[in-house]
């Protein structure tokens, strides 16, 4: 299983934060986002067990994933 924390507002239809527990499959972060219906460009960063990882990173069983919202630069 993996646990995914999704902040509110990343998906148009979900305004509140949600925590999802999902059955693990050997997929990259980008593939997981696609499965969750989240556009990559709506995601500011993805932390896996507290560390930022690229979209090409493959999740492992037991991972805790936190999706963070987009920022404005500076």
């Amino acid at each position, binding site marked *: 299983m993996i646990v995914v924390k999704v*902040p509110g*507002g990343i998906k*148009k239809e979900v305004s509140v*934060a949600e925590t999802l527990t999902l059955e693990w499959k050997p997929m990259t972060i980008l593939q997981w986002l696609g499965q969750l219906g989240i556009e*990559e*460009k*709506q*995601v*500011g*960063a993805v*932390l896996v067990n507290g*560390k*930022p*990882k*690229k*979209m090409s990173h493959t999740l492992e069983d037991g991972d805790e994933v*936190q999706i*963070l*919202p*987009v*920022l*404005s*630069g*500076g």
Partner: protein
Amino acid sequence: MDNILRINTRTRTIQYETTPESYLKTGGRGLIAKILLDEVDPACEPLGRHNKLIFAMGLLTGTNVSSASRVCIGAKSPLTQGIKESNSGGTTAMRLAQMGLKAMILEEQPEDDHWHYVKISKGACSLEPAEAYLGMGTGEFCDAIHKLYPGAAVSCIGPVGEMLYSSAGIATTDADHKPGRFSGRGGLGAVMGSKKIKGIVVLGKDTMPLADKEGFMAALKTYTSVVKDAPSTLNYRTLGTASMVRIMNGHGGLPTHNFSLGRFDGMDQICGETIFDVITERGGDGRTSHACMPGCVIQCSNIYPDIEGKAIVSPLEYENLGLLGSNLGISDLDTVARLNALCNDMGIDTIETGAAIGVAMEAGVAAFGDSEAALGFMEDIRRGTVLGRVLGNGAVVTGKVFGIRNVPAVNGQAMPAYDPRAIKGMGVTYATSPMGADHTYGATARAQIEQASSVGQAELSFSTQKNMAVYDTLGFCIFCSGAVGNQHQLIADLINARYGWSVDVPWLKSIGEETLKNEHLFNQKAGFTKAHYKMPECFTERVLPGVNTVFDVGQEELEQVVEAHLEGRRTLKP
């Protein structure tokens, strides 16, 4: 905090004035606009004696409220010929506020060739000789000052400010006493140089008076927890603004090869995740998170080290990765960091410099991706060769000299790292800002909107501009806005406890609207008309590959934004 420090650089007289009633309930960018409107002829020459350089503190600056002590610096801009305010983090504003100052005004200019720095402590101010420091980079100057006054807060110019380049900025020391924070935009460093002032040095610390200490501490606790725990804060603290590299590339709006493309083949090598990994692997001085001012809980800054772990630059941020990286076709992070560090040390705006070099590369002065040539241009700029002076006076001047019409600039100022054809709300902000192309004037990139569509972008930019104006006028970092959201009462509660006032959320909105109106009024009096607020043809007529669109928000809508600000309207449409 009720004094204005006025320094006449011609007569070298120094006066402390009680802040007029009409200035008490504003600060930062808002106070700068008021003082400029009241005291400076908008038609004046920016580098002449009639212009004034103003440092203005926010309403909570100097307190221990996180992210509320930005240093706001303003004047009439030599780059845009309009009003300019540019703010940064660091320690100077916090210290100036703690010395009892609401604002500091540098006016006139010397009739002789003597240079000075301004030394400020509690109740005392003097002009100290600065000839010995001329030609020094910002780092060397700060090191020399810190030998005399350990721990002093410093805002200073580098050699390009002394040479009056239109892209010269003002550097401010961070919490580690390094001058890495920049009021970079609009040539404010040249205005300081025109008054023959090398820097501002602030000694000492103090605590700020609080009308209701208990109420303040309670409000502070709530505010701090909201900002600290927000998901946006966690992103700032982990990847910082560099997280935008991948996202803008995804939107097809990452400036590449002088804004001719919006996606960069080398994106993966300069994105936030790679920076995090490189900093972590190299260790040493490197930090993936770092506070630019004491007490900040967001900590979006970083320290980027070389392969031996020795710091190259702090911070390495999105705009610089875009303008000095992808825009120049450079994907080597160490080179981008070195270009950034060289800009910081000579005291020049990274955005304007990256854009100017991009224009020169399109002209064939060097090939895109040529790191050695880019580093060589930095040497030219610093030494003041003819090519260096061209580049150092910005993208528009560079375009004119080399006969290039694809110049990413509005009203004289280069665009930050958001292509306005892909992020159209940002394009509206660039076109309608009275300060030239400026992302912080109304940053729309995080909005839930179809970014490349023209629909709704004028409304989005208009409302974002109003929100940003509130934060800038309070002296707050706009990075709080993602955490605070609509909970503006949190900020009102802090202000009320600090001063014993009873302001509310509508009042907060009104000070932002007043700021926008005053800034546009200044420009109107300087000769700007609504027709000045437009997007250049290289963006309205040249299709951005990948996104397959031009900037197509209508001129009528752009003019409506300006008109709405001038009339102080709450809504875009009358």
